[in-house]
């Protein structure tokens, strides 16, 4: 045995591997090809090795055909251990792995004839396989003039030269157009229907779904799942993207209809749909109409993602260097956090200081304003007092003058008529009323009204106009400092204006309004 081989018990599988391992080493490092592959391919039918690029499909085929040597594990083909038993299987295996390596200057037929002579196959077999792959017309043309489709068909013909029981094909539809892809898939399917075992490595999900009976899904050199295509991949189920005006209501309706719905932004994804028309029907029953209904088949990446086991992360003991690095990182992080906190605190303090300074400035400004207002009020009060005093003095003088004049008139009439003292007493009240009228100048009708309590106050104020002006100013100031006081003052002023519209008061009001 050239390398350690584990014994596989006898079975009826066409291909069986046990713990197959292969790694590629280069100057860039070690890359895993396959890692512990336990493959089982039944006899007959098409078996697909399905996986993304780098999953180990081609490596598996190369190991099975003897083009590469395994690092470990065991392989059996038709019950024979390989690669040691490959010479015994020479006529039973045909393979298309990698570029076929035909000579461009030779015709397709000539290339096949060379391989036939190397394999000890009669020449007549060459024409048979050319007919089988529908390449007879182009058989005499130089291989260099072949299309990709024809190259693939010639490679398939070469693999069929010895009429193998097992056909191994790597990526059968690579580089082919739609027609070529369909033809080669049909050809592989026909071979399987004839009883051959066909092992296909492919990265195309639909290819596996269309032609394979059984499938092995590979990922990073390991088997994710093995089984029938219907079990693992499904054959007709799709996911449908739906857009409606009311996604919430639509989701409820679809769930009620038995669909699996998941929201994706303003669209809904309905999974596992057999017939997309059922979605339209379910929505229409609720008077909902889809603006978009797009069936989406599950792709290979989704299948691999679905089948890939979720491995919980295993805690590993960190090395000393890693611990040092982690400590350093933590210290650095803490220092950063502290620095940020300090900076935030400094900013906060600065903001508080600024606010305090603003408040002090505002208070100072308010105090200044209040002082200036108080000074202005005192000044006005003084002016009003002086004016009132002046007016009072004028009125007093006028009253005195009037009194003197009226006192002089009765004296003249008394002297002329020789009247008694009653006349003098009658004149005296008249003179006092005139003096009072000269001082107050009452409005029309004011004398006819019965004075209320306020009017009584006003009457008191009338008696002392200077004091009234001071009180008025004080009231205005109080109103200015109290919210809504301004309106109250105006109201009071209105009452004062209507109730006591004397000249001194009117002047005072006008001044205060003008100042304001």
């Amino acid at each position, binding site marked *: 045995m050239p390398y350690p081989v584990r014994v596989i018990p006898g079975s009826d599988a066409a291909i069986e591997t046990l713990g197959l391992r292969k790694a590629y080493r280069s100057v860039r490092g070690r890359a895993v090809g396959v890692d512990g592959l336990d493959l089982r391919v039944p006899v007959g039918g098409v078996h697909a090795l399905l996986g993304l690029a780098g999953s180990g499909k081609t490596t598996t085929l190369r190991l099975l055909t003897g083009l590469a040597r395994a690092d470990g594990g065991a392989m059996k083909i038709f019950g024979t251990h390989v690669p040691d038993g490959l010479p015994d299987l020479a006529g039973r295996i045909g393979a298309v792995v990698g*570029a076929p390596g035909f000579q461009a200057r030779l015709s397709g037929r000539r290339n096949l004839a060379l391989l036939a002579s190397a*394999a000890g196959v009669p020449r007549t077999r060459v024409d048979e396989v050319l007919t089988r792959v529908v390449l007879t017309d182009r058989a005499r043309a130089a291989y260099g003039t072949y299309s990709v489709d024809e190259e693939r068909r010639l490679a398939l013909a070469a693999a069929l030269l010895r009429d193998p029981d097992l056909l191994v094909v790597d990526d059968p539809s690579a580089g082919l157009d739609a027609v070529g892809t369909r033809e080669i898939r049909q050809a592989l399917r026909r071979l399987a229907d004839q009883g051959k075992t066909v092992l296909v490595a492919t990265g195309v999900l639909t290819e596996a779904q269309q032609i394979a009976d059984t499938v092995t899904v590979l990922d990073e050199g390991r088997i994710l799942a093995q089984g029938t295509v219907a079990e693992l991949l499904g054959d007709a189920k799709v996911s449908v993207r739906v857009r409606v005006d009311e996604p919430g209501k639509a989701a409820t309706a679809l769930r009620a209809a038995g669909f699996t719905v998941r929201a994706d932004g303003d669209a809904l994804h309905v999974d596992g749909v057999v017939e997309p028309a059922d979605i339209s029907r379910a929505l229409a029953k609720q008077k909902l109409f889809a603006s978009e209904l797009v069936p989406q088949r599950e792709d290979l990446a989704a299948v691999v993602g679905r089948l890939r086991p979720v491995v919980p992360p295993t805690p590993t003991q960190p090395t000393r260097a890693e611990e040092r690095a982690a400590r350093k990182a933590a210290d650095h992080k803490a220092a950063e956090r502290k620095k940020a906190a300090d900076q935030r605190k400094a900013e906060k303090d600065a903001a508080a200081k600024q606010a305090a300074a603003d408040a002090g400035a505002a208070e100072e400004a308010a105090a200044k304003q209040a002082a200036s207002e108080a000074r202005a009020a005192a000044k006005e009060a003084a002016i009003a007092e002086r004016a009132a005093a002046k007016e009072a003095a004028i009125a007093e003088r006028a009253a005195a003058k009037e009194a003197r004049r009226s006192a002089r008139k009765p004296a003249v009439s008394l002297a002329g008529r020789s009247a008694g003292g009653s006349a003098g007493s009658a004149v005296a009240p008249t003179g006092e009323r005139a003096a009072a009228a000269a001082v107050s100048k009452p409005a029309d009708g004011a004398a006819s009204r019965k004075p209320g309590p306020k009017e009584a106050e006003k009457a008191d104020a009338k008696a002392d106009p200077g004091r009234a002006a001071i009180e008025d100013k004080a009231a205005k100031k109080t109103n200015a400092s109290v919210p809504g006081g301004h309106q109250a003052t105006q109201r009071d002023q209105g009452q004062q204006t209507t109730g006591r519209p004397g000249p001194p008061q009117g002047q005072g009001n006008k001044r205060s309004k003008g100042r304001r």
Partner: protein
Amino acid sequence: MTGLLWAELRRFGVRPAIRWIAAAMLGHVALAVALTAFAPEASTLAAMLEQGQISFYALTSVFLAYVAGVLLVTGDAASGGTRALLTVEPRRGRVYWSKLAAAGVAVIPGVAAAYALLASGMYWVHARAHVLGGPPSELVEAMTWSGVRVLALAVFAAVGGAALGVLVRRWWVAVSLAVAWFLVEELVLNTRFPGDWFPFTNSDAWVRGTRTVLSGDGLLAVPLVHSALVLLGITVVLALLGAVVFRRRDVR
């Protein structure tokens, strides 16, 4: 095995590089004959055979045969062909030995043609100038045997080249190794050590048919069998190493 050999020979024959190598062999000897024709009286044919000028011209063809052997097993076309053969004939040993055999067989026509052109041209040039330097029958016999030895050496060279190509995988590495070894042997080793075991010295002696070495008793002729055994041994060792590697190595 015959089918494998035939397949390899067919593949070998259709490769453009091989055709260019055959053309180079013929062109080289034609040039040598043409240059000699300008001054045939400079040296007689017998003297040229004795001094090793004919063998020098022939060794160029041997080197080209080595390159052809390397090219048979290296490059994309060769690896593709090997892969295709292994899918229909999984016995690696058979495939490997058929390749080496094909390399040895494939160079025979080209080298034979080149040597025939060289020998007949030289003879004709010197005969025309009446400077053969010996009896014609003896000269023809000596040149014929020299031709046979050149052919044998070319086969060894091609087989050794194919084996080295399998070992190093890249044609330019194998060719560079041969050129580098030639320079080292001629410029360094031959001046310090006796060249009894060096491949190029023995190749020259083999083609020339005799070899003189300096010993305590003066100049002595080294028997041909020694050179033959050295060259055969080198070829066998390379072929066996190649076989071991080919059996175990992955085919790209």
